[in-house]
Every structure is written in structure tokens, then in C-alpha cells.
């Protein structure tokens, strides 16, 4: 047993620097001669820019440069892109407006970028930014996704009539209609999936630096995928060719999706470093993060399920409006389409599904992927719907789910996804047992005696991780392939550097990737270094999001390690003078079968570089291999979460009494880290269900633009979590792993809202279910009960 190998809860190797204050986040980096950028942002949701007067600001102390969209355009700097083409049901391509890094003649949301002021110090840049006089002609704003497509609403982009980006669909409408016609029962839900603000605790930051000598740029940035940033900044925005642009994403303080995207500030700081001849640093304050980080979710959905008399689901019909904000962010178009509808079958065998999605513009911040990205929205729809259907039909919700679970694999859903493996009834059975479901009626009665309302709620979620087979996503409109790369460099003394295109911003790759190397090569984990986040070191990669690092990134590493072992075997056979096919490699030792000859991995590494004992015409010196891995399929983690809550009807306060999770992530690399991922995901899901919600007023002002107004989950809002794993190994990758990063955030909202509605006996409660909302609902159900 390798104590630092796969499956062990190895303590994290990156932690020492974080617990001692030695982390290097972007704002901790200071370049010689560095100047500071502050952005002038629109205070209006929708306005024409009549003029920008920079005269007073330009004369302020310390100012080095002030630039607007005209300056970017004059330098032929391109506009921001959306990398996933969606076609509407009529076959037409999506209708996207231009997304300039600095506004042209119009601003379209509060926080939109109008100008940048660069000065010697941050305070001087702030002072001067106050002096930039922008003359706005304020226009009416279209803020609500519900109404933005209506005639007479203010139009955001000429290119998108009726503020409609696309009207997309998936599934077989006729088959669904036929199934509904023959149904014994139809359940309907009307849901909103509340808009969230990601709020990684590290605000976004960027430092652009131009080297006059080489003509090259370096961008230090808070990115989950530095290579994609380099690709976009080079190939689409045109700042510099890729060989003249280095992107470094050092320690990154959380992402949750919001740091996938290529933002205006990164473009401007990089470009402006050449204009002012100095490195240019920008660090968001929290208000800017609220205003201008891409938000998440924001769906309005109606969904119907058709059942036969036994509660077997026959068909599903879903219609969603997805708010995409004022511009299309980097992957915005894909989130409410291909990352959403293909998961609507949930864990259930549903013969027919039809889903329509309208993606719409509003005068709000761009909306893009946030932890789970489409999959939490899908799970919320199906898990609310089955819960309501079960209650309406008088079937126990757990039993209703059991009757409908998929039981054989592979399973082709009617919405593209082909589930490879899973054991859904097992997760449910374990979750019921761990949650002491049998004891719930007694606990409910005890609560009732105390004047409290107790409820229990289920969420049997499914997720698609490990994005993705490149050809498959290409056929659906993705602009890139979604493979991953890894390079293994073995040094002559047997130490190893791994260069990975995955990026860690809390996931612990410096530990988990090294565990795989330790396991495969039989060397101590201390001999392994993991290098990531620098495009000059790692040749190419696609980054970390969608729980893809283990399933795709580590599979690439596994493939590269195969090549290392193969070459080291050749070297060992020549040095030991035994036939190659008799060389065995176990626990870090090569041996010749039937001989007493052995060599350690370190011995072979040295011999590979010394190169005295083999024919270099046949075997090249050195030991370094790389691999690109393209997945065969998505992976499909699943599980059941059960929330048990108690409501005080007098105050509306909901207390989470018990949280039980049983998850199937396939094989685990590091169970300790997996548990931590689940905890964090649940917390974000509970935040969505009970606490968080972005609110714009009717004029498009973001009312929740600080931590004093937007309710983040705090330690005393949350319980401890009971988390257990089952394992059906994933057949789609060599490690049998599925991915765990988003599971909690996907599962939790439906479990909690199902528990609250169970306690209230009242289906109509929106997220976030704040004490006020719960108190109102409790009062309404009391009146209803009294009337009955």
C-alpha cells in the first residue's frame, strides 16, 4: 500500500504556504515600475455616451494615461467573444451584440466599462477616475428576463431584435405531446432559479506587462484557464501572437466559474502596459466584483411531467427563459442550453423530453457559468417536479423516485446524454438509512409539539462532468476542443515535474496529481512537483471547470505516465541486459523476470540521461513524455441528498437539522479532498436556496452590491454535513473517476426547498427562502388549513 498513492487522504502539499501567509495571489505580485489602473464604470443600466471629458483627470497628480473604447478601436484591439455558437430552432445562428472591452457609444449595465485611468498609485488613479466627466443620455432599461422580449421594451443590441439571442430547443416535441395526451396525471411547476453572484473571496485582479526588448507581453491574472485566456487574447482580441503573450495564473483564490471568462480588465491592462510603458495592475474592489464579475443562474421555468397511474414518468416538457445579461460572456450561450437540457432526465427513465430555451438580453451584468452551470438548474427543475408529482399522487417521494430510477447502463436519455454507469437505488437506500428516515415521523411529531414545522426533502441529482469529447462538443457549437494535456519530466535523479493544463484554485492538484505519480512510479510524493498556471511552462491546456481536472486532466497525466513507464522499461532492459518483455515494474522497482537483476526508478532515470548503456539510435536519451487526452464521454456523478429542517412559524427561521449526502463519484483520488469539495458545494447550494439572490431594481441598479446587502453563507448559517460515498467506477476514463466539484451545489437547492415545502405543505416558495418568505408561506398555509 502506497501511503501517498491514489485513494489516500494525503494532507495537502500546497497548504504550508497558505497557512503561513506565503501564498502568491495576483495582488501579492508587484512588478518593478508598476502603475495602477482604475476603471470608470457606468452608473446607469442603459445610456448613450455623448462625450467623455478627460481633461481635468489627465492633469491630476500621478496620471500616466486615460483611455476609452476609441483608443482600443484605433489600435485595432478586438472585442470580447462568446466561444459557443448556439443555433435557434429555426436554424438561425444566435444573435449576439458587440461586446467591447471599453464601451463605444453606449453602456448597457451598471458597472459597464467606460474608461481606464492609469496612475502612479492606486489612490491617485482612484482620485483621477472621479474627475473623468462622462456625459450620459440615460435610456430606459430592460431589466426583467420575464418581459424583455415584449414589444416596446428598450432594445439592447440592434443585432438582437426583441432582446432575443436565441430560441433553442432539444428533444422530440411530438413524442412528448403524445405522451401527455395519454397521461393519467400531469404535475406542473413554475420556478425561478435565482440569480447568484459568485463571490470568490479573492477579487479578480490583473497585471499587464510589456517587455520593449522582446516585444512580448505578460499577463498575471486570476484565471481558471490561462491557456484559454492566451488563446482568446491572441487569436480573437489580437493583443499579440501567442508566442509573444505569456499568461500566468498564480495562486487563485477561488473561482466557481467566475474566473473562467476573459474579461475587459485583462484586455485593457495588457494592452495599456505598452501604451504607458509600465506594468499596469488592476485589483477589483468587492463592489466591482458584484457589478462586473459574470453572475450565475437566473432562469424562469415552467415544467410539466406526465405520469401513468403507477407514477411512472412518461414525458417531460420544459420551457425556460435564461437571462444572459447585457453581453454574452465567454461561455454564456452554452450554459442554459447544452449544459442544462441534457441533464433534464435526472436519474429517471423518461421516454420523452422536450425543452425550449430562450436566451435573452437584459440591462444587467453578463451571466455565465457558476458552480454547476446549467446542471443545478436542471436538477432543480426535475427534483422539484418529481417531488410535487409524488405528493400530488399520494406516493412517498422516495418511493416515487425508486419507481422511476434508471437501472441498467449504458442508458441513452432522450436529451443527448448517454449515462455510462451508476447505482441510483443504492444511493437512495443508503441515504434513507443514514438520514434515519424511519425515525422522521417521530421527530416531526416532537417538533409539532413544540410548535415547530419539520420537513424532509430529497434531491436525487445527476451531473455531467469531465467536459468533454472534443468532436461531440464541436458538433454542438463549441469553439474549442476540450481535451487536456500533461507532460512528465523525469530528472536524472529520479525526481519528477508534472506540467498540467489543469489549474488549481483550491482543488488541491499539487497533492492529487502528485498522488497519481507517486502511485504509478512508486516514488515518494516529495519527489514530485506539479507545475500549472503558466503558459510559458505548460505548453497548452484547457483549464479547470466543470469538474474536469481528475477525469480529463489526470487521465492525460496517466497517459503520459504510461509512456514514461514504457520508455523506462526499454532503458531498464538494456541496462539490465534482459529481454524487454521480461521487465516488470512494481512499486518503483524494475526487475528482470527470472533473474535477480533489479533497478529502482531513480537508477533507470539516471541511466536514461547518462545514455552509455543503450543504443541512442534506437532509444533517445532522456526521460520526458507528454500526452493529450480527449475523453470518450462525459462522466455522470450522481447521488442523493436529504435535508431535514425545522421551521419556526412565528419567525420564519428555517434551521437545518440534518444534512445527509450519499454520492457516487466513481474512484476517489483523495477522499479528504472530495469530502471538502462536497461540503463547499452544499454550502453554495444552501446559500442559493435560503440566503443569496442578486436583486436589480426596475432601473437596473444592483441593490445587492456588497456583502452587507448580499447574504453570503456564514459559519453560523450552516450545519455540519454527513457525507458518504458509494462507488461505481467510471468506465469512460482510465482512472474510473467522475468528478465531485459541483455535486453539492447541484443537489442542495432542491433538497432544501423540497424540505421547506414539505414542512409548510405549501409548494409555492421561491429561492431564496428567506425567513420573511418562509414566514409568509407559513402564515398562508395556516390560513389555508384553517379554511379547510
Amino acid at each position, binding site marked *: 500500500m502506497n501511503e501517498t498513492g491514489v485513494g489516500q487522504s494525503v494532507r495537502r502539499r500546497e*497548504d504550508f504556504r497558505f497557512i*503561513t501567509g506565503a501564498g502568491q495571489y495576483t495582488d501579492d505580485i508587484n512588478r518593478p515600475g508598476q502603475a495602477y489602473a482604475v476603471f470608470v464604470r457606468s452608473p446607469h443600466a442603459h445610456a448613450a455616451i455623448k462625450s467623455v471629458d478627460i481633461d481635468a483627470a489627465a492633469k491630476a497628480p500621478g496620471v500616466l494615461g486615460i483611455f476609452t473604447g476609441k483608443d482600443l478601436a484605433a489600435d485595432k484591439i478586438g472585442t470580447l467573444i462568446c466561444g459557443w455558437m448556439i443555433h435557434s430552432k429555426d436554424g438561425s445562428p444566435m444573435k449576439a451584440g458587440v461586446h467591447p472591452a471599453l464601451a463605444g457609444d453606449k453602456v448597457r449595465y451598471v458597472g459597464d466599462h467606460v474608461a481606464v485611468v492609469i496612475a502612479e498609485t492606486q489612490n491617485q488613479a482612484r482620485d483621477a477616475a472621479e474627475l473623468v466627466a462622462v456625459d450620459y443620455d440615460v435610456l430606459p432599461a430592460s431589466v426583467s428576463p420575464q418581459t424583455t422580449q415584449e414589444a416596446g421594451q428598450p432594445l439592447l443590441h440592434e443585432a438582437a431584435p426583441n432582446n432575443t439571442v436565441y430560441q433553442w430547443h432539444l428533444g422530440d416535441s411530438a413524442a412528448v405531446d403524445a405522451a401527455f395526451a395519454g397521461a393519467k396525471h400531469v404535475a406542473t411547476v413554475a420556478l425561478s432559479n435565482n440569480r447568484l453572484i459568485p463571490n470568490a473571496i479573492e477579487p479578480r485582479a490583473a497585471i499587464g506587462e510589456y517587455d520593449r526588448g522582446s516585444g512580448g507581453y505578460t499577463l498575471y491574472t486570476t484565471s481558471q484557464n490561462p491557456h484559454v485566456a492566451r488563446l482568446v487574447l491572441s487569436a480573437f482580441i489580437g493583443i499579440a501572437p501567442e508566442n509573444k503573450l505569456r499568461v500566468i495564473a498564480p495562486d487563485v483564490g477561488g473561482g466557481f466559474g467566475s474566473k473562467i471568462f476573459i474579461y475587459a480588465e485583462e484586455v485593457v491592462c495588457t494592452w495599456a502596459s505598452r501604451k504607458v510603458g509600465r506594468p499596469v495592475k488592476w485589483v477589483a474592489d468587492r463592489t466591482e466584483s458584484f457589478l462586473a464579475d459574470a453572475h450565475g443562474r437566473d432562469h424562469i421555468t415552467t415544467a410539466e411531467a406526465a405520469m401513468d397511474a403507477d407514477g411512472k414518468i412518461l414525458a417531460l416538457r420544459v420551457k425556460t427563459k435564461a437571462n444572459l445579461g447585457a453581453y454574452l460572456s465567454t461561455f454564456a450561450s452554452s450554459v442554459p442550453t447544452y449544459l442544462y437540457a441534457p441533464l433534464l432526465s435526472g436519474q429517471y427513465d423518461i421516454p420523452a423530453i422536450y425543452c425550449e430555451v430562450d436566451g435573452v438580453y437584459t440591462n444587467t451584468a453578463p451571466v455565465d457559468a457558476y458552480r454547476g452551470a446549467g446542471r443545478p438548474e436542471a436538477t432543480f427543475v426535475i427534483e422539484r417536479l418529481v417531488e410535487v408529482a409524488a405528493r400530488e399522487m399520494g406516493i412517498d417521494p422516495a418511493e416515487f423516485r425508486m419507481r422511476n430510477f434508471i437501472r441498467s447502463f449504458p442508458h441513452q436519455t432522450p436529451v443527448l446524454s448517454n449515462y455510462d454507469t451508476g447505482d441510483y437505488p443504492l444511493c437512495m437506500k443508503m441515504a434513507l438509512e443514514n438520514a434515519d428516515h424511519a425515525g422522521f415521523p417521530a421527530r416531526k411529531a416532537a417538533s409539532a409539539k413544540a410548535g415547530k414545522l419539520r420537513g424532509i426533502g430529497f434531491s436525487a441529482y445527476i451531473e455531467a462532468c469531465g467536459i468533454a469529447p472534443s468532436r461531440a462538443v464541436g458538433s454542438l457549437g463549441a469553439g474549442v476542443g476540450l481535451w487536456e494535456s500533461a507532460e512528465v519530466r523525469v530528472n536524472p535523479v529520479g525526481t519528477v515535474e508534472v506540467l498540467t493544463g489543469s489549474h488549481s484554485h483550491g482543488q488541491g492538484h499539487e497533492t492529487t496529481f502528485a498522488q497519481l505519480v507517486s502511485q504509478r512510479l512508486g516514488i515518494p510524493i516529495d519527489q514530485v512537483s506539479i507545475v500549472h498556471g503558466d503558459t510559458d511552462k505548460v505548453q497548452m491546456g484547457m483549464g479547470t471547470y466543470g469538474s474536469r481536472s481528475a477525469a480529463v486532466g489526470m487521465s492525460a497525466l496517466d497517459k503520459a505516465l504510461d509512456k514514461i513507464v514504457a520508455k523506462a522499461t526499454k532503458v531498464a532492459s538494456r541496462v539490465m541486459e534482459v529481454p524487454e518483455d521480461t521487465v516488470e515494474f512494481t512499486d518503483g522497482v524494475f526487475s528482470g523476470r527470472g533473474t535477480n537483476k533489479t533497478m529502482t526508478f531513480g537508477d533507470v532515470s539516471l541511466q536514461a540521461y547518462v545514455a552509455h548503456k543503450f543504443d541512442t539510435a534506437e532509444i533517445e536519451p532522456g526521460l520526458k513524455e507528454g500526452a493529450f487526452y480527449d475523453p470518450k464521454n462525459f462522466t455522470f456523478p450522481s447521488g442523493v441528498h436529504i435535508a431535514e429542517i425545522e421551521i419556526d412559524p412565528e419567525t420564519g427561521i428555517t434551521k437545518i437539522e440534518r444534512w445527509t449526502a450519499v454520492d457516487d463519484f466513481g474512484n476517489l483520488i483523495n477522499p479528504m*479532498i472530495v469530502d471538502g469539495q462536497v461540503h463547499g458545494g452544499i454550502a453554495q447550494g444552501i446559500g442559493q436556496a435560503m440566503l443569496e439572490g442578486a436583486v436589480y431594481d426596475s432601473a437596473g441598479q444592483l441593490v445587492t452590491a456588497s456583502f*452587507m446587502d448580499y447574504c453570503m453563507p456564514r459559519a453560523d448559517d450552516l450545519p*455540519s454535513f454527513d457525507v458518504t460515498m458509494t462507488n461505481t467506477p467510471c468506465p469512460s476514463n482510465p482512472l474510473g473517476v467522475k468528478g465531485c466539484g459541483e455535486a453539492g451545489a447541484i443537489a442542495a437547492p432542491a433538497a432544501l426547498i423540497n424540505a421547506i415545502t414539505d414542512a409548510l405543505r405549501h409548494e409555492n416558495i421561491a429561492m431564496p427562502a428567506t425567513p420573511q418568505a418562509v414566514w409568509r408561506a407559513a402564515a398562508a398555509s395556516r390560513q389555508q388549513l384553517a379554511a379547510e
Partner: protein
Amino acid sequence: MAAIGMIVNGKAVTAEVEPRLLLVQFLRENLRLTGTHVGCDTSQCGACVVHVNGLAIKSCTALAVSCDGATVTTIEGLSPAGQLHPMQEAFRECHALQCGFCTPGMIMSAIDAVNRKGTSLDEATVRAELEGNLCRCTGYHNIVRAVQAGARAMAVRPLVQAAE
């Protein structure tokens, strides 16, 4: 400009600073002690917590000039001789951090809680004490365990805080 002096992590420092300079800016920019982080602008997130004269404060909400003459300990000052503070060790052992950005403030708040509330802390107390520190990664589950474990370890191995 104003002349100020402090003892920071056991070392005497002096500087001429703008009156509007915040303590956190002084620590990060003047002293290059970048372990203390800034996560918000409303004194809510707690990433900037340091100890001033033995008490936890949010260094984003104190002017450097108001700390003239004070003794300040930052995360860098917790393990001056290279030996980790028991609370630092507990955070690593319990996997109480993921991205690490909130961690320095979280550890400084946790030690302050132990200093005020003792080394035997129940879960509810720990959760209440962490009310001023936001973490977006961990769901707090392992942080709570770490603070309890760190508190117990502080009882066994009382730490001489060299800087305080």
C-alpha cells in the same frame, strides 16, 4: 504625511504615510506582508484580520496612523521560528482550507476566539465566533473541526507569541 512606528511581528518599523493609508495597505504595500488579504470593502469578509495589541481586528477598517505605537501580529508572525502554530497545524490536518485566500484571516480570528473563549470550544461557539469571516470554498465544516482541534492543541502546547 504622518510619521508612525509599530512593532510588527516582533520587529520595530517606522514610516511616513498618508493619513488615509489603511493598516492593511501599510502591511501589504509598505512592509510586503502579503499574507494579510483584502476580500471586500465593507469590513465583512475577515480576510484581513490581524492582531493589534493582542486583539483581532479587521485591518481594512483601521488607519495605519491609528495604530501608531501598536504591536501588530500578522499570519507571517505566527511561526517566527519556523514551527507552525497549533492552529496552523490544525487547519492543515483537518483540510480546513481550499483556495487559501480566507485562511490567514480565519486563523487569526480562530486564535483570538481561543484567547477569549478558552481552549474547549463547542461547535456552536466556533460557528458564532467565525461570523465575521467568510469562506466560499469549504462550507465551514472542516474549519469548525480545525478550530476545535487547534484550540485543544493550544491547551496542550501554550504558544509563546514572540511578537505579542
